[in-house]
């Protein structure tokens, strides 16, 4: 059964990617909101925000990238939910294919779609003045963090897609994830926040991830934020993966 796991995943990945190329609106809607936030904060609020950085776009971009991923993964839950509803999921499950390949195809599709969205958002940021002198290693590190973060959130989306009872429910879980960057260092330094809010902001994953990416792009020496960020991403990934697989097993048996 495992001999075909890779081949089956590749075939199913091709199927889901075709869904994306045929409904490019999912990529567009995924990128429009983060780009809109970026424009809003840079050109409306940005002038009044003391970020302590020369360029507010440079300060803002890491948080915008995380919002992009958080809104992108809701489509993974949506696509998975539609597969379950339409019966094609059951068709695959009753065929002699590696059962995990059905899930992995969705997860890899999510990764590809989010990377495309992230590139679009970075290009938009370049247009409005984002600049970074970071070299290839720093960019690779940023890409690595974003990939692990995408995978972590994607497995959360898998849980939502498998257990949702309606289309709305399948994508609603992503709203808190999209809002999380607002209570972090993504838009303003946490020092200005009142005590309890600051305590939350300083200790939630987005702040560490945003700070790590910001340092990497600004060619600052990496602080402990990088390791905290990696720990959060990997931790969420492992927990979400285990829960998703348990949900999957409950769904298919």
């Amino acid at each position, binding site marked *: 059964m495992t001999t075909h796991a890779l081949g089956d995943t590749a075939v199913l990945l091709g199927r889901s990617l075709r869904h994306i190329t045929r409904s490019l609106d999912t990529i567009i809607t995924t990128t429009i909101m983060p780009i809109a936030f970026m424009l809003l904060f840079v050109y409306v609020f940005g002038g009044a925000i003391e970020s302590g950085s020369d360029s507010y776009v440079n300060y803002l971009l890491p948080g915008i990238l995380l919002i992009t991923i958080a809104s992108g993964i809701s489509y993974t839950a949506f696509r998975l939910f539609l597969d379950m509803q339409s*019966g094609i999921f*059951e068709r695959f499950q009753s065929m*002699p294919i590696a059962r995990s390949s059905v899930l992995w195809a969705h997860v890899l599709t999510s990764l590809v779609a989010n990377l495309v969205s992230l590139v679009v958002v970075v290009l938009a940021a370049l247009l409005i003045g984002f600049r970074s002198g970071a070299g290839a290693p720093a960019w690779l590190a940023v890409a690595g963090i974003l990939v692990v973060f995408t995978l972590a959130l994607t497995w959360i989306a898998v849980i939502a897609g498998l257990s949702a009872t309606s289309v709305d429910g399948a994508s609603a879980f992503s709203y808190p994830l999209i809002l999380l960057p607002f209570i972090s260092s993504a838009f303003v330094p946490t020092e200005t926040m009142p005590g309890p809010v600051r305590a939350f902001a300083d200790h939630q994953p987005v702040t560490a991830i945003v700070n790590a990416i910001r340092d990497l792009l600004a060619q600052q020496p990496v602080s402990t934020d990088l390791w905290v960020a990696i720990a959060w991403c990997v931790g969420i990934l492992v927990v979400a993966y285990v829960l998703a697989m348990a949900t999957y097993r409950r769904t298919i048996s």
Partner: protein
Amino acid sequence: MITEAVRPAIHVRGLQKSYKALEVLKGVDLDVARGSIFALLGSNGAGKTTVVKILSTLLRADSGSATVNGFDVAEQATDVRRSISLTGQFAAVDEILSGRENLVLVARLRHLKDPGGIADDLLGRFSLTEAATRRVSTYSGGMRRRLDIAMSLIGDPQVIFLDEPTNGLDPQARNEVWQAVRDLAEHGTTVLLTTQYLDEAEQLADRIAILHQGRIIVNGTLTELKQLLPPAKVEYVERQPTLEDVFLALVDDEARTGSPATGAMTPAGTTKEPR
């Protein structure tokens, strides 16, 4: 009741399944001979779909045993999946792909050589060649169902499960599905179909079992089932054309004269109403 020496294609004994407190199957026994069409008849909620899901390895039974093509559904699920195809209650087709892409997808997942050739062959057999490159979301209900069944035939499975295959179809599409099912049985495929339409069972099945409140209450050929009731009375009734006769006669005429290029072969395949 089965006297052939060959092992039945489907063999079920004492199958039980509950969803929490709700007992759906309370001990189902049935055998389906190879190459026959077996109809599982029952009203909504009788447990027909549950039986099909257990036999197609999607659901585990609480107790009892079931073998398909000689393989135990619980212990040898992979072998069972190699022997079967499931056409579920709702056409399990990918709406965003074209009809041809759907078929190629399944052929690839079954690791067959020449997926494109297999797809083209089935498109022809099910009168879908013209619609092959169109997205399935533009297909009519009958076309979807035909594609659905075509997808189930890929890899020549020995046993095919059809769960309410004509649910929601118009009479023409239903007749096409019936013909497809008859063709299957002629090619030696074993078909287990569930239905709530009595005439469907009557038209297609070699044997009919009635599932009621979690048990099979009768199981036999149509003739045997009819003998369960008092002998037929002879009554003289004026034979009026049924509404279905009228509908089919009118619509078939329309299709034949309306579009001679395609209408002759597949009247329903040319219906254009989007769904």
